[in-house]
Structures are given as C-alpha cells and as structure tokens.
C-alpha cells in the first residue's frame, strides 16, 4: 500500500535558491573534473612514447578543440576550487546566515567567472 503512494519530487517544479544552485554546480563541476582528469591523463600518457609523439602532442594542444577543452577544464577547476573554499569558510562558521549565504554564492560566481576569463587570456593571448 505504502509503495503505491506517489512522491512529489519534480526538480523542475521546485524553486532552488542561489546557494543551492551554487552547491549543485559544485558537485557537477567535481564530476566533470574527474572526467577531464581522465582526458588529461591520456594526453600525458601519449607524451611518454617518443620525441615525435611529444612534438605531435605539443602541436595538437594548440588546436582550437584542445585549447577549448583545456580552458573548460581550468574553468571547472576554478569554480570547484572557489565553491569549495566557500564550504570551508562555512565550516569555520563564516557566512552561515541566509543573507551571507546569498552574498557568498554571488561572490563564488563572480570570482570563478573572473578566473575563467583569466584562464582564457592565459591560453589564447
């Protein structure tokens, strides 16, 4: 009888406040970083073969696709790091109120966006 009861849990019909979105993105960025690290490890492994393969990899890394993936990975890392620092600060009882939580979330987005732009500048300029 109990198992037949429906449960309302439609995430599209539930309004998540900004701190929740920042926290969920922290998780998502962590999973994507894990996948990106596999990609980076494959690149690293391919550089160990011989001098020709190493030079080929250096050449490949300059391509738009590789540099875009690299930029995306660094952006994810920036976001994950900044959002993680927010969690650490909360563990130290900083930013526990709802207002501070909202301000902290906005700061996480701004700082990670700035870092992402700086990563782009570093890669492409």
């Amino acid at each position, binding site marked *: 009888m*109990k198992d*037949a*009861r*429906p*449960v*309302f*849990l439609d995430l599209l*019909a*539930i*309004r*998540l*406040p900004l*701190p*929740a979105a920042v*926290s*969920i993105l922290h*998780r998502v960025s962590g999973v994507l970083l894990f996948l990106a690290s596999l990609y980076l490890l494959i690149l690293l492994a391919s550089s160990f073969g011989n001098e020709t393969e190493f030079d080929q990899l250096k050449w490949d890394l300059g391509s738009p696709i590789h540099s875009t993936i690299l930029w995306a990975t660094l952006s994810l890392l920036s976001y994950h790091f900044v959002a993680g620092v927010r*969690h650490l600060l*909360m*563990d130290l*009882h900083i930013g*526990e*109120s*709802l207002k501070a*939580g909202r301000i902290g979330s906005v700061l996480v987005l701004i700082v990670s966006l700035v870092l992402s732009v700086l990563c782009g500048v570093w890669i492409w300029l």
Partner: protein
Amino acid sequence: MQVSIYRYIPGKDTEPRMQHYDYVLPDDRDLMVLEVLEDLKAKDPSIGYRRSCREGVCGSDGMSINGRNGLACKTPVSEAISRDKLMLRPLPGLPVIRDLIVDMSQFYRQYERVDPFLKNDTAKPAQERLQSQEDRKKLDGLYECILCACCTTSCPSFWWNPDKFLGPAALLQSYRFLADSRDTATEERLSKLDDPFSVFRCRGVMNCVNACPKDLNPTKAINEIRTLLVKNGT
C-alpha cells in the same frame, strides 16, 4: 488568478494530476494562501489538505507554494504569486496520502532518533533546574521550531537519504539539547550522530534556512554540531 492544485485521491487516481481553478482576488486586501484554499474547498470539498491554527503555530499546512516550501497560513498570495498563477503541491520527498497531505512518518522517525527531550542524570532538584540568562539565550533560534517539515523536505540530502540523513529539523532539535546547559547527555548524543550520514550529509545548500517559516537557521545548528563532533575527537 489561476490556482493549480496537486490532486491525488487513492482508489480514484492512478497518477497525481494538477487541477486548475480560477480565483478572483479581492482588490481591497491581500489574502493568505490558506484563505484561497479554504474558499476553493468550499466549492470543491474533495480537496485535501491539513490545517489547524491558521497562524503559523501548529505547522500543519506546510506545502510547496509555487516551488517554495512554506506554511499556507503565513504566506501572502501577493508574495507567492507568479505570472498570475499559484501552484500548490505537497511537501517534496514524502509519500502523498491524498492531494496536499503527506505521510510524515519518516520525518517523525528522524526526529525521534535525536531524543528530543532533556536528559539529566544528576539528583532531582526540589523545584526546577535553573539556568543562567546567558545559557538560556543559547537556546534562542533553536526551541521555536514547530516541526512543519518545510525545511527537511526542501533539503536535497534528505530527498536522497531520508533514512540515513537526519534532516535539518531533527538536527536543529538535536543541537537545541546539545546547547542546553541543563542537559548532561552531550557525549551520548554526539556518539549517536558520529557517522558519515546523520550530520555530515549536509552540504550547506541552505534550502532549509530559505524555507523556514519561523526564520530559524538549521544550517548554523548543523555546523555547530559538526564543530562539537570535531572537538569531541571524532
């Protein structure tokens, strides 16, 4: 305004559905969401929801109002309405008994787990256990909880682990007794919380603080418990 209500009548509906009602708001005053529900129920008595005090004390009419958990009796329509629509759904993550009425058993089980009562193993005083004004102040923001479940059912950690993670309401109550100078069972209480799920599944999402109709801060209480657990050497 269009009011859409989550409908599920066991034995009649096989799946939940949204039923839409037209409602004309008065020009001269604001209404609480509960008043709208009362009017609609007068026209359609089959609508099911809980209510009692209608002043934010009993905690019976917690529901998802346009995607945000709150008490229908304390939420003004003017604050909740979005694009002339009011969507009323049951509290998320709990089994629906009928329409907006959910089965709170899991919520109460987690509340029970924190032993929400004073424990003191010292000799009984002649009259009452006294407390300094400073110690009493530590309970402000903790004791006011009305167990409406708005916080716990807005918490993603509770949605995914309702049997393992205690949830914000139970943890707020847990800290209410950990912080009480008259309670002597601190070690025992902390040892019961010392596992990866009960407390540490909280990720600081703060949905609980956002939802609480009494403006309490379970996230802060949970962080205080974590600090106590660390200081206790766990």
